[in-house]
């Protein structure tokens, strides 16, 4: 592993490895029925807007093991950019070093950026950027614990949209998002990391249920067209349910 000494941090040894354990018999294999929930169930969502007092808007989301904090700063003046008629939406995603099974050294890698791009795509068409010339909206997302990349993208989009609404930024509609995976012949919604690894392919759908519009679809892996379409239908249905969770959470935080 190439390792550049970063003098801005406290450094450990040059090379270190995660502990390897003796064999575990209770491994879960393909063909077994899904653990803990039925194929069409998603993990229960805990969503709390407005936890970060320093930010204009914020949200914290927890779906079983996945834990994500999101803060929105802005709209504020764009710096170092040329004049633009439209506002800019900036999304930054950061994993904490202890968020994954393997420790993530605090250097930005490609995974953070691909999640940031996916979340940006899910949100950008819902924000009325034409009302905010010369401005930037910064969305910062910290993944405290991750259980599956797809789940992070979906939960991250939901948290970010909630935080935008909490910041009082004009939106066309709330964006909700859901992931699905094709495991064997079944469609399992909201896969965990282990399930996504065993899946043939995954689909993440982001949409604005209030307007019945899809904002982003991200399909990866090998799926038949019919399977991908079935995934999308299942996701869209769940997105409508998630929408009422988000609306309820925002309503409750507005009352306080």
């Amino acid at each position: 592993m190439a390792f550049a000494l970063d003098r801005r941090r406290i450094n450990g040894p040059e090379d270190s490895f995660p502990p390897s354990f003796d064999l575990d018999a209770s491994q879960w294999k393909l063909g077994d029925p899904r653990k803990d929930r039925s194929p069409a169930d998603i993990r229960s969502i805990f969503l709390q807007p407005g936890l970060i007092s320093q930010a204009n808007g914020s949200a914290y989301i927890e779906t079983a093991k996945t834990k994500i904090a999101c803060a929105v700063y802005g709209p504020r003046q764009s710096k170092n950019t040329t004049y633009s008629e439209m506002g800019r939406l900036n999304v930054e995603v950061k994993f904490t070093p202890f968020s994954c099974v393997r420790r993530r050294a605090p250097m930005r890698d490609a995974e953070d950026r691909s999640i940031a791009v996916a979340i940006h795509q899910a949100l950008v068409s819902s924000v009325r950027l034409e009302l905010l010339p010369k401005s930037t909206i910064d969305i910062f997302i910290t993944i405290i614990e991750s259980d599956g990349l797809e789940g992070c993208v979906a939960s991250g989009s939901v948290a970010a949209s909630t935080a935008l609404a909490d910041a009082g930024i004009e939106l066309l509609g709330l964006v909700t998002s859901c992931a699905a995976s094709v495991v064997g012949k079944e469609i399992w919604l909201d896969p965990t990391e282990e399930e996504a690894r065993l899946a043939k392919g995954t689909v993440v759908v982001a949409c604005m249920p209030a307007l019945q519009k899809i904002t982003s679809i991200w399909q990866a892996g090998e799926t038949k067209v019919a399977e991908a379409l079935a995934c999308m239908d299942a996701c869209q249905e769940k997105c409508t349910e998630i929408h009422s969770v988000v609306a309820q959470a925002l309503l409750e935080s507005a009352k306080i």
Partner: protein
Amino acid sequence: MGDSAKIFQRLHPRAYLERFVAEDVRPDGRPFDAWRDVSVNVGSISTANGSALVRLGETTIVCGVKIEIAEPELDAPEEGFLVPNIDLPALCSPKFKPGPPSDEAQVLSDRLNEVLASTISLSSLVIHPSKAVWVLYVDATCINYDGNVFDAALIAMMAALRNTTLPKATYNVETGLTTCSRTAASPLQILKTPISFSFGVFDATLLADPTAFEEPLLDTTVSVVVDENNNLVSVVQSGPGVDSGAEDTLSTCISAAKSRRVLLGGQIP
């Protein structure tokens, strides 16, 4: 708070705080010597080997410990590694930008490293001398920055370390590999639990546990770190002290920290 009060606070922060201090109260309603409430929640992150979430008023810190195995340094074959770092991401406050650690984060990491060095004996982290030792990566992330991050981060790091267990590891001399047991594990041997107490001086007034609004207005900051036997671990004063009658600032802070340590000791796991 009314809009005009908010605007006054933004435009003239010093005058705003002066008016409160003249009335013997702070903007959040605390008396000068009062601390914000501390809450600690341990073990909620399953991907970490030990973790803690600490809230000090609105300031929120999550800390996770990850254990890894490495070869020890040649000149210290019987010493493991303890690597504490704090991250102040752009998420936690408008004053931070995304990118490499800010000056403030670097200074905080360094001070935390200094204090933590006395809490764990590195020789207790040896698996096999000069071949394999444990590395404890102690990473804290600030989620909400409302002042006095050092105190909160130290509580979080200590709570996360207390929550950490090391699996029983065996080093195979022939293969050079280390295998860990899935069932047998033991907690870390922690020598002492230091807690930090920070103060600030604003116009000759001593404020305990300053908030993010008060911090930039302070002339002097004092941090006193005390362990469970009320021994000093570290004292840092940056800025001039104030002569106010019988006791100087530093002695006042030290005695306030010691009496608060007794009170807080029971609350922190």
